[in-house]
Each structure stands twice: as structure tokens, then as C-alpha cells.
């Protein structure tokens, strides 16, 4: 005889199972050796903000930077770098490709500033999160005697981010990582709304951080 609480537990387990995220990571390395970084040299993780319709999430950039900690690499925070090199990494002026970066570094003042900050690598993150396929509905009412939410809704969240690593010593691209993460979240209204959220962003952040770290710590092949 199955008891009511067992059915409830099973239902919760099924829902929580549905809240996981599926993450796919692809990478490209021009060679098999790990990237060299000397003592005192720094890495900056930057978000692309020049597209009109989206901006790479600052929190996501911060999250990837946090995941990179614990190695012998100093991470210069994005905001500190952008301020230090102002105004050459603003949305209007940030180099979109290596040819533009080369031209930028031909300016003695900019080159001197980069050397002063000891920045060796730039990692550009470009991408966003999208919500798709929202179904169901929920209505909430509030009255003098109380209120509550009733209904059910679910949606799919997709995060796609590309990371590109630039080496500032020889102005070359040292690798690319593409992360796609997706998961379904639910909101169940039984008087109080109960959110069951899929950890899509944190899964993408962990995956990307781990992969990025491997560029500096592991040889491949």
C-alpha cells in the first residue's frame, strides 16, 4: 500500500529531476600544450557588450572569474581593467577582433598601460540566456481576508556562451570554448508559489570555468 507522503515524495523527486540542466562544452585549441603564464602575469575575463539586443551578463563573467580562482593565475576583475584602460574597452571602443587589438596596442600609452597592469591574457565571453517555450499559467489573488497563487507554469532556459582567449604578448588567439546549457524550470502554485528552478546558468558557469582552467593546467593529446 503506497502512502500519500510516498506519492508526494515521488512527485517532488520527479520535479526536481526535471530541474537539472544539460550542458554541452566544445573547445578548440590550436595546439596541445597548456598555456604559459608567468608569475605576476594576469588574466582578465571580459563580457561582450557591443551587441544591441543583448549583453553578456556581468554576474556570469564574475562567476567564471570565481571558478578560475585557486590556480597560480591572478585574475584582474573586469571592472578594474575597464577603468584602468578607459575608454578603450567601452562598448563603443572595445576591439572586436585581433586586427583592431593590434592597432590599439600600437598606441604607446595603451601598450604601456597593459604592460603596467601585467595583463597577459584576455578572455572574451559572448552570449546570453534565453527563455523559451513557456506553458501553463498562474494566477495570484490578494484580498482583505488573505490570498494565494494557484496554477502551474514551466519554461525552458537556454544559455549559450562562447569564450575566446587572446594572448597579448604575440596577439594571437589561443583557444575557443563553446558552452550550451539548457534546462526546464517549474513554478507550482499551491497557495504559495513554489519555484523549482533549473540551475542552467550555474551549470554553464561551472562547465566553462573548469574548461577554461584546463587551458592553463593541462596538456592535451
Amino acid at each position, binding site marked *: 500500500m503506497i502512502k500519500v507522503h510516498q506519492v508526494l515524495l515521488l512527485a517532488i523527486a520527479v520535479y526536481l529531476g526535471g530541474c537539472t540542466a544539460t550542458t554541452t562544452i566544445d573547445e578548440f585549441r590550436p595546439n596541445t600544450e597548456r598555456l604559459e603564464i608567468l608569475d605576476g602575469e594576469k588574466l582578465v575575463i571580459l563580457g561582450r557588450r557591443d551587441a544591441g539586443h543583448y549583453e553578456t551578463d556581468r554576474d556570469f563573467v564574475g562567476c567564471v572569474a570565481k571558478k578560475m580562482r585557486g590556480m597560480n593565475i591572478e585574475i584582474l576583475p573586469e571592472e578594474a581593467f575597464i*577603468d*584602468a584602460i578607459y*575608454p578603450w574597452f567601452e562598448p563603443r571602443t572595445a576591439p572586436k577582433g585581433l586586427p583592431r587589438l593590434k592597432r590599439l596596442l600600437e*598606441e604607446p*600609452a595603451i601598450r604601456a598601460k597593459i604592460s603596467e597592469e601585467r595583463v597577459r591574457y584576455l578572455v572574451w565571453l559572448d552570449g546570453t540566456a534565453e527563455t523559451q517555450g513557456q506553458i501553463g499559467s498562474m494566477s495570484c489573488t490578494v484580498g482583505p481576508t488573505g490570498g494565494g497563487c494557484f496554477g502551474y507554469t514551466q519554461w525552458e532556459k537556454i544559455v549559450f556562451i562562447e569564450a575566446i582567449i587572446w594572448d597579448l604578448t604575440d596577439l594571437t588567439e589561443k583557444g575557443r570554448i563553446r558552452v550550451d546549457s539548457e534546462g526546464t524550470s517549474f513554478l507550482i502554485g499551491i497557495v504559495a508559489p513554489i519555484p523549482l528552478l533549473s540551475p542552467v546558468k550555474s551549470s554553464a558557469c561551472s562547465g566553462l570555468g573548469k574548461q577554461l582552467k584546463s587551458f592553463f593546467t593541462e596538456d592535451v593529446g
Partner: protein
Amino acid sequence: MPIRLLRTAVLLNLLLMLGACSSVISVKVDQQFPNVVSEPKDFSVALVFDQEFRTYVAKPNAKASIDIGSSQVDLLSRAFRGLFQRVEIVSSRDQVGPEAQLVIIPSVREVQLSTPSDSYLNVYEVWIKYNLDIETPDGEPIDSWFMPAYGKTPDSMMLSRSSAITSASTVALRDAGAKLLLDFFRIPSVYSWMERQKESEVQ
């Protein structure tokens, strides 16, 4: 009796909330900007920030006012110090010293604000349209340069209206600095003025 009291409290609360939705919002952008990374050119310029510019409060619509006066003075002072080796900052045209080779008088033409309720986008956007009157010390006009700048919030989630407008205005001011550094010496009349100055120094 308690139910009547509760009803009154709920109604009062709703009225307050609705009142808050329609209130006029005033923000002050109180921001210190970073120094610019640039090699300034060997010229002396006078930058005229009149009282109106120093205390400028934009009113992009009937429901919002944005005080950008002190921030825009800070930003433009730093940006022009990155463009020219000697920058003299004065409050009126008649205070310009004898060393100045160029006089620049900035003014704000217009500030526009777009909120999620206007655009149905999940962002706040601010446009600041500057005008730079560029003259010789004798008052001969060189150019009147229109310089638009744009800023937006990444999204409006978790942001109050005032912090979103402040954030978008700060981004717009930073963009003005970027635009100035990128394009000022590309203004044809400024470029030819500099060439003439160099030629006269050679002679």
C-alpha cells in the same frame, strides 16, 4: 470592525503603491570617472563650463529629472586632459587666458530617456546629445560638433527606477568620453586647424 480597518489599510496601501508608480523621479548622477589612457597633443585649450552646464539637470519627460551637471564636468575635464597637454577650465568665455590656442564650449542639446514601459524592452536607455562649440581665442568659429552618447542597463530586473536611470546615465556619460577620444581629432575642421597650427610653428 477589525475587517473594516484591514480593508482601509489595504486600500491605503494600494493607493500609496499606485501613487509611487506615477510619481516624479529625480536622480543625481554623482560619479567620478577614471582618467583616460591617451597621449595628449601639444596644444593649450580652454574648456568653458558655464553655470548652466555645471548644474545641468535634464528633464527627459514630465516624470523624470536627471542631474548630470557635476558628473559631466568631471568626465569632460578628464577626457580633454587626455586629448590636450594643457587644459584650462573656466566658467565663462571672458575668463579664457592668453595661452589658449583653442576654446571649447560644451552644451547639452537634449537628454532622452526610454523606460521598459515606453519601449516594451527590458532595459532603461539614456541618450545625451552634446554640442561642442569649437572656436579660436578670437572667437572665430571652427566647428559646432554634435556628439551623441548612449547608455543602457543590461536589464531592468532587480533594479529600482532610480538606480536603473542612474546606471544608464553613467554608461551614457562613459560613452561620451569614449566618443570624444575616438572622434575629436577626426573632425575635419579640427584636423585642418591642427595642421595649420603645426605649419605656422614650423615657419
